[in-house]
């Protein structure tokens, strides 16, 4: 079983022969350790070579250890040089930005896509919850802490009800068009879409202004129906 170690003067060394020094130094991975040990067990010539390597290993360490350590002068020189360097201002924002970009850079494209989808969904849910809370609290009243024996002193703080309208958008209306319309009217969707009808709410305004708004809304290209609602 002399196949593993080759006559090196004539042939190229085998892979196992070349790995022997790392085995001696204990820096091989588990798979290669197993390969080397199996080869050593069956090949006496390789084992002889390994014994020579162990000697080289020990003497290399001995030789390096005999070199001693640098004097304190080296350290003094280093820290004097560092003191002479211009002061660096570490940028906390840069570190944070680097951390965030590093985090996203480590994510796979698939993970990133899923994360973005979940983020968008979370935003929609949040918007829905906020809308619901606002609608529910519209009739809220405020009661003072003082107590009246005969009748409670309450003050209705409900603002003047903002105008609302039921709107049906044209089938060809795109989301971008609807969003642009909502922006231009400073309106928000408070309910919908039941039977294709959305309930929109506008900023508070007078009755005349509301009537003008409804007329204008009915003329919009992407609006097929607009009626005032409570």
């Amino acid at each position, binding site marked *: 079983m002399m196949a593993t170690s080759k006559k090196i003067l004539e042939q190229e060394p085998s892979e196992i*022969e*070349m790995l022997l020094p790392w085995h001696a*130094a204990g820096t091989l991975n588990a798979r290669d350790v197993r390969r080397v040990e199996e080869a050593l067990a069956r090949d006496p010539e390789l084992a002889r070579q390994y014994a020579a*390597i162990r000697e080289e290993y020990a*003497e*290399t360490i001995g030789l390096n250890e005999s070199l001693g350590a640098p004097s304190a002068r080296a*350290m003094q020189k280093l820290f004097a040089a560092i003191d002479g360097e211009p002061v660096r201002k570490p940028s906390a924002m840069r570190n944070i930005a680097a951390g965030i970009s590093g985090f996203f850079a480590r994510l796979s494209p698939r993970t990133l896509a899923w994360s973005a989808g979940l983020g968008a969904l979370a935003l929609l849910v949040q918007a829905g919850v906020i809308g619901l809370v606002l609608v529910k609290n519209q009739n809220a009243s405020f009661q003072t802490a003082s107590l009246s024996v005969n009748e409670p002193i309450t003050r209705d703080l409900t603002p003047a009800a903002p105008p609302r309208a039921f709107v049906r958008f044209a089938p060809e209306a795109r989301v971008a068009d609807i969003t642009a319309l909502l922006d231009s009217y400073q309106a928000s969707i408070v309910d919908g879409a039941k039977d294709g009808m959305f309930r929109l709410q506008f900023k508070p305004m007078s009755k005349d202004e509301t009537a003008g708004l409804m007329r204008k809304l009915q003329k919009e290209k992407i609006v097929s129906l607009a009626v005032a609602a409570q």
Partner: protein
Amino acid sequence: MQVLYGRHHVRVFRFGFRLVRDEQVAEDLISEVFLDVWRQAGKFEGRSAVSTWLLAITRFKALSALRRRKDVELDDEAANAIEDTSDDPEVAAQKKDTGVALRKCLTALSPEHREIVDLVYYHEKSVEEVAEIVGIPENTVKTRLFYARKKLAELLKAAGVERGWP
């Protein structure tokens, strides 16, 4: 920086010393290496061990220092010509002290072979780490160490030390 220096300066010094063969130059080298590290700390990407990064910088600095020193030749002749008060390999062999002969021969290797032997045996670097430090492919790392060992065996044989390999 003090912690980093305290932890690594001796190994950096020894690696540099083995390459430049001059204690004074090696000391200057470690100041330069750690100053570079201080300046470039932000560039360290953590992909490799700090010691690997340090040794790569040390090697670069040592080779630059050698290039600056025109009086130092990077060949075996120059290595052998450096004055050494200890016994030469033949005398060491006569004393049947293989260890001493081995150390002499390790010193007589070419810088290219010395550095790879030191990195693997003393600095305990893996094939991948040596490749990173020296800047050569992993397969070249393996073959270079093999031929460094072969050269070592030849030097020992010339000094009258037979180890049964090759």
